[in-house]
């Protein structure tokens, strides 16, 4: 039923090796998924900290647009966002003529852009929620030390909020890792993309997608373990007391 030879034969393709077909690059498969994920998370987190500060701002002109951004990006499917960027923007001659076109015509760039904006929207809400939940005592203490608003944000509020955001953020990272699978639908050769290519070459569905599923499952377990040790490191003061 399941062809083990085919699995053994095609497994290297998921790790950037040639499977007899011309390879697009040696970063095919697992490496591509990890690359897309790492770039999206890096830029997404960098964007979301200032956005979270804007989201909790009392000034409506600042908080409103950030709310709209997170609302729209959390309320629509990632696939639609990716298609708007990858297919949609080519509709405008102005975009095609601009300097940005050399990037926007690449599926890789569009995928990183879509994933970044998507994860930034979710992460902004996570961090903003934790900033709002900052204990009033910490803020009073910071004021009593004579800190101004920005110093207090930088030294007290943000570090504390980021630590407490860790459990929710670990969920977001795992969700994002799984979401990168849609990159396989815009010609990219991530894990899902490689599996699809093998499927269209061999007309065998079980084997390639079983390998893909196993790889994603392994990545999920890896991230769960990583975040568990990160929580031990940074959140141990919130852990239930050992008897």
């Amino acid at each position, binding site marked *: 039923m399941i062809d083990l030879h085919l699995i053994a034969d095609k497994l290297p393709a998921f790790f950037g090796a040639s499977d007899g077909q011309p390879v697009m690059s040696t970063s095919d498969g697992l490496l591509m998924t990890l690359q897309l994920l790492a770039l999206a998370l890096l830029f997404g987190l960098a964007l979301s900290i200032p956005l979270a500060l804007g989201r909790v701002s009392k000034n409506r002109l600042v908080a409103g647009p950030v709310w709209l951004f997170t609302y729209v990006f959390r309320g629509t499917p990632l696939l639609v966002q990716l298609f*708007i960027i990858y297919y949609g*923007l080519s509709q405008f001659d102005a975009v095609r003529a601009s300097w940005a076109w050399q990037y926007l015509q690449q599926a890789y760039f569009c995928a990183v852009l879509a994933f970044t904006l998507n994860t930034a929207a979710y992460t902004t809400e996570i961090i903003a929620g934790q900033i709002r939940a900052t204990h009033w005592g910490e803020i009073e203490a910071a004021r009593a030390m004579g800190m101004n608003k920005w110093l207090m944000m930088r030294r007290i509020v943000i570090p504390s909020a980021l630590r407490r955001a860790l459990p929710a953020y670990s969920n977001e990272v795992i969700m994002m890792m*799984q979401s990168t*699978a849609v990159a396989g639908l815009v010609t990219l050769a991530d894990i899902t993309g490689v*599996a699809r290519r093998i499927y269209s070459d061999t007309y065998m569905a079980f084997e390639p997608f079983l390998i*893909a599923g196993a790889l994603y499952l392994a990545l999920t377990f890896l991230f769960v373990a990583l975040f568990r040790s990160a929580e031990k490191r940074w959140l141990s003061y919130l852990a239930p007391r050992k008897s």
Partner: protein
Amino acid sequence: MFLQGYLPSILEGAVLTLKLAGAALAVSVALGLIGAMFKMAPSRPLRLLAELYSTVVRGVPDLVWMFLLFFGVQMLLNDLCAAMAWPAPDIDPFVAGVLTLGFIFGAYMTETFRGAIMAVPKGQMEAGYAYGMGPLRVFFRITFPQMVRFALPSFSNNWLVLVKSTALVSVIGLNDVMYRADAAKSTTQEPFNVYMVVAGLFLAITTVSNLLLRALEKHYATGLKESEL
């Protein structure tokens, strides 16, 4: 003319998407309740089975599940029928989509319902048994009405993720909103407008869902407010 007359077709697709999501939700709630009961069952094999289901399903992306189940199971059925010399079955993409999405989100619902059932005080169920109710009657009259409040926040989240996941179902050839958008994109040469309309439709669905679910949460929290005052 806006989108060269493709708007009705896209709207029809959106209706199909909504139907698909609704039917998948029903399947996932049923699977989630069964999964949650298995997870808390006294029998060890049942617990392991439920654990395996909720862990493995949640650890693999929806898209990979769709490819695996839709193409894989179809091939398996074809092989089976060829071996039995039966005519090859024609799987309806709608039914396949409902079952696939229901199977995936049943795993998320399992976790939702398990947490919610555990949050209901045990004495409530014991009182039900003391009145001579059977396990099913205790579940539907006592456990279920009280667990809804605990389940709703996570349930709402699952529903919103489910709605957004339906966008992926066009890969299995269903005539849904993404499939029609693809057709409209090729003909009109206006991909931006087409996908913005699709995004707007999804945003409308999620907005209405949010409003309804918030009202529902309020409804199920009525008893709580008095005790909190």
